[in-house]
């Protein structure tokens, strides 16, 4: 897998954007700014997915992460009061010693990872192979069906993902649906207030508590 030409330019643009936006997510004082920087980081990574030929995943990334999860995050940020941090009265980070230790271990982790990647890939491949790969990909794309406009060609990537999802990964697919159901019920249960719980049980919590206490006392007596 070797990119060339315009793909290289877009690779560097989107990867640098993703990293800078990721850094700003962690560094931003305002939580809303953090969320917006995270959105731009996620969109950049989505663009890298398109560069890698995974159009369906890129679409899902934009729809689910940016359209769903991040909107949820923004709602919760609005619900929760974070005024003190924004005004600079409360510290953003932990105490300096804790931060220093955390960063030291992060540095060790990054060194280990980069060392491992460097060792596994002993330098870039030669140009001939890059050109061959590009030519092979171009030839493969020529066999694809043309789109309605006649300019671009239709990718069969989504079809392949769908096929694999229902054959190779059909059991995890069903389990994922169950997980989502549990998540929906769980988040509804967590976000309920005491009043709403009482309304759902049709009994005031204090009344039900005293009734249970009296039954217990009767049982002991």
């Amino acid at each position, binding site marked *: *897998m*070797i*990119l*060339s030409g315009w793909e*290289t330019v877009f*690779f*560097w643009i989107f*990867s640098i954007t993703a*990293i800078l936006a*990721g850094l700003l*997510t*962690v560094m931003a004082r305002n*939580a809303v700014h953090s969320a917006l920087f*995270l959105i731009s*980081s*996620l969109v950049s*990574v989505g663009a*890298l*997915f398109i560069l*890698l030929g*995974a159009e*369906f*995943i890129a679409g*899902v990334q934009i729809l*689910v992460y940016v359209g*769903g*999860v991040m909107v949820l*995050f923004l709602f919760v940020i609005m619900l*929760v009061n974070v005024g003190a941090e924004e005004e600079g009265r409360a510290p953003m*980070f*932990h105490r300096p010693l804790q*931060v220093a230790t955390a*960063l030291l*271990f*992060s540095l060790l982790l*990054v060194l280990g*990872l*980069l060392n491992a*990647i*460097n060792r*596994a*890939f002993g*330098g*870039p491949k030669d*140009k001939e192979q890059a050109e061959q*790969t590009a030519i092979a990909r171009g030839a493969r794309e020529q066999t694809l069906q043309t789109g309605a406009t006649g300019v671009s060609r239709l990718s069969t990537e989504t079809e392949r*993902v769908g096929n*694999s*999802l229902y054959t*190779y990964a059909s059991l995890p697919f069903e389990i*994922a649906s169950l*997980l*989502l159901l549990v*998540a*929906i019920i769980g*988040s*509804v*249960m*967590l*976000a309920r207030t005491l009043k709403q719980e009482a309304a759902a049980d049709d009994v005031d919590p204090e009344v039900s508590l005293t009734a249970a206490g009296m039954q217990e006392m009767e049982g002991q007596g």
Partner: protein
Amino acid sequence: MDQLYIPVLGLIFQEASDGRLAKAIDGVKHPDLSKFLVIAAILFIIGVAGVLTRRNLLVIFMSIELILNAANLNFIAFSRYLQESGTGNPMAGQIFTVFIIVVAAAEAAIGLGIVIALYRNRETIWIDEIDLMKW
């Protein structure tokens, strides 16, 4: 192009030999799998540092999303690599990514529900003030 790059970069990296420098420039001009892995590793580390250093519970959640996203990038890069090398199941990486996104969505829903319940009870989202279970 190379005639332009090599003298400029050669001034900056004095000790780098000509062959190594040309190789490095070629790596920049033709990014391969390792470049994607490096980008994903950097995003992962940023997320880990965010989880370990920030006090705001919501920003910690966002850092977790960043970590999951870095893992997704790795999976997709390896999926493409397998497609071109023709070994293994090339779609496995993309399928894994779909499930990671599903789990991330469920995790965000539950996690934010917990944040709201916590804020309702403790009136704080600073994780160093949430120390009920600490001895």
